[in-house]
Each structure stands twice: as structure tokens, then as C-alpha cells.
């Protein structure tokens, strides 16, 4: 069974597309710096934990 696909490509405005391409390195760099900042990650994710803290912080690992 083949992967589902569209028959022809979707139109996107050139300028908008190129801006998205140009944003890749800045986003990579940003997420890398965030991952290096243990204090920030702990603060954002632990402060958000309420009630059953262990369960709640574990959920933050996931994209649900």
C-alpha cells in the first residue's frame, strides 16, 4: 500500500516560503540554547506542574 499523496504541488508565495527557509537557522540555534539552559527548563516545566507533579512533568516530554 502506497503512502497517500497529492497529485500536484500546492502553491505558496515565493517570499513567504523563502522567509520560512531563512528562519531555520535562528530556530535551530534558539532551541539549542534553550536545551543548554537547565535553569530555564526546570523553571518553566516544574512551575507548571500541579497536583500530581511526577505525572504532570512527565507529560511535558510529549507532544500531546
Amino acid at each position, binding site marked *: *500500500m*502506497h*503512502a*497517500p*499523496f*497529492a*497529485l*500536484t*504541488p*500546492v*502553491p*505558496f*508565495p*515565493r*517570499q*513567504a*516560503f523563502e*522567509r*520560512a*527557509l*531563512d*528562519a*531555520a*537557522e*535562528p*530556530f*535551530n*540555534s*534558539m*532551541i*539549542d*540554547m*534553550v*536545551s*543548554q*539552559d*537547565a535553569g530555564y*527548563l*526546570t523553571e*518553566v*516545566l*516544574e512551575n*507548571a506542574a500541579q497536583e500530581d507533579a*511526577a505525572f504532570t*512533568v*512527565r*507529560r*511535558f*516530554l*510529549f*507532544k*500531546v
Partner: protein
Amino acid sequence: MRIYKDTRQQKQPQEEISLVITRSDYMLHDPTSTMLQVELNTIASSFGCLSTLVSQLHRYILDKSGVPESDLDKKLPQNTSMDSIVQGLASAVQEHGHQDKTMMMVVQPDEQNSFDQQWLQLQLWTTYRIRTIRRTLLDIAERAVLQEDGSLMIDGTTVSLAYFRAGYTPTDYPSRKEWDARTIIEMSNAAKCPTIAMQLAGSKKVQQDLARPGVVEKFSRSNSDAARMRTCFAGLWGLDDLENDTEASNAVQDAIKNPDLYVLKPQREGGGNNLYGQDMVDRLQQKQGLGALILMQRIIPPPHTVTMIRRGVAEDIESLSELGIYGVLLRKGSNVLLNHRAGQLVRTKASTSSEGGVAAGYAVLDSVQLVD
């Protein structure tokens, strides 16, 4: 989070190799013709290989249907996602340097989308002579061993890179064993794609926090980088301090006047449903308890009719499309060795469907045609 904190204390002193294959997903906001970010993925960003193949397929179809080559060159951008992602994986293996030259792909036990993964394995072998072994978290829990020098061995092989195509959803961790597997990988000197820290950095809560004033700026290389990223953000307003937060209260007023341009979401996962239109207006006018909600700009993509081929059947369906831009970043210790974009992916789904996943059968793979 517990693993993150435990392993940070115990990790090997030699330089950690961290690889991330990101995919930043956008939708075109029709009223302003700008790409607005839907989310930034830092784990198991898939379809990189099938995306390259679909781009090639579309070029072939247009070519056969008579579109002149010069038009094709102008309209169809290159899509290097397969090669770029493979190169990223190979670089991480090479940085690790073990003679076994093996990448361990961490997979789900009943993986349905293995063809996209198999292309990676094939390219890694033919271009770089890198072997791939596929193991589930349970396999790793039961058979992986951490050596004295910090290397990770499983079934007689030393692992240079652990590449996660599993581990991003709670169902991947049904027991304590799977968590132990994740821990042993994290503690080893194998390169990880991604590390736990990188996976946490991609979580929804962090992404919401990054959008707050000053936070993106704190984590940017430059002001121009920060500004570039901010132009991609859809408006996002916390509603817990409306008396003092003029921007948020202006947004609320605008949402009441123009409800189609906004959506009201619960602050926490599982905190309820999104509210649109009149339901949203009614809730905003109630005023109490708004701190549990966030107001977001609604991205309004242009709908278009697409011929979708699914299970061998063609159907014309009104759809909207999401553009993903892949990126590769490789870090060793305190040095960033690679940082570049790595191709693109388009997923097109029926306008009426609420699920966006291609693997779940609701969306199709697509590619980009540029319009000037």
C-alpha cells in the same frame, strides 16, 4: 523531567554529542500572506525521505503533462530533505568515531511508517557505510549494557548514535523498563538525536513561554534573528492580568469584535476544548477565571481543491496545507558544529478534518509550487 535531572548529575564528563533534526511547521495566513508557525518539532521529525520522493514525483508529473523545463526550474524549489537529514545523522556517527559505525534507530514495536525510515537506513549505508540497527525501548531495556568507558553496547555492537523515532508519546513508555532504556541511552556517550533536554525544549509549554516578550530575545544569537523569528509567531496572549496588560486586553476586545480571527485555548493540556466564534465571545465576556485560558490568533490558510490519491483512489477534496522546514543542528560539548536548514515537507489535509497526521490517514504528502 526526573530523568533529565538525574542524568545531568551522573553523565559522563566527555563531550556530549547532541544532534537535533528539527521541523518547524507553518501555515500560510492568507489575510497577510505570511507564514505563521504552528509548532517546532525536536523529536522524530518524520517524512524527510518520502518528502524528497514526492517532490520528485510532482516534478515528473508536471514534466510529463507538458510544463516547460524552465517553468519547472522556476516554480519547483529543490528539496534536499533526504540527503540533508542523512548527512546530519552521519555527521553525528562520525563525531562519535567508534569503528562499529552503527546508528541505533529507536523504533516503536508496530511501526507503520517504516518506509520513510528504511530510506534513511539505505542512504546511510550506501553513502557513508554506516550500519543501522532497529531496536525498541523494551529491547534496549533488556539487552543494552553501559560499559565502563561510558559506551553503550547492545547485541555485541557499540552504538555511536541513538536516533529516536519513538519515545515522543506516553504510549511508548508502558512500563518502568522503557524509562530505564531512555535513561541508559542518555547516560551513555552515544550521540543522541535528540537528548532529553532537546526534547523538553520542544514541548508545548516551553514553546508557549518562548513567545512571551523578551524570552526569544534571551535565546537568540542576535536581534535580527529574534526579529526574524517573531514575525513567524501567531499572536498569543495570556489572560491572567488583563487589568495591567494592555496588549492582552486590546486583543480580547478585538476578538469580541472579530471572532473569526481568534481562538481561545486552555492553558494546560487536557484543560478543556478550544473555543471559537460565539462560544469564544461569550466566554470572554464572562470575565472570571480567564487566567486558565490563552487567546491565540487564528491562522487562516487559503483553502484549495486538491486531488488526493489514497489507497489507489483519486478524490478531489477541499484542503489546506502545512509547510514544514527541516533543520539540522549538531553540537559537541560547547561547540556547534553544524546548523543549517535541511529541506521541506508539505502535508495537505481536508479542510474539515481536525487531525493533521499523514500516518494517521487524514492527510497526504505534497510539495511546494512557488508563486510570484
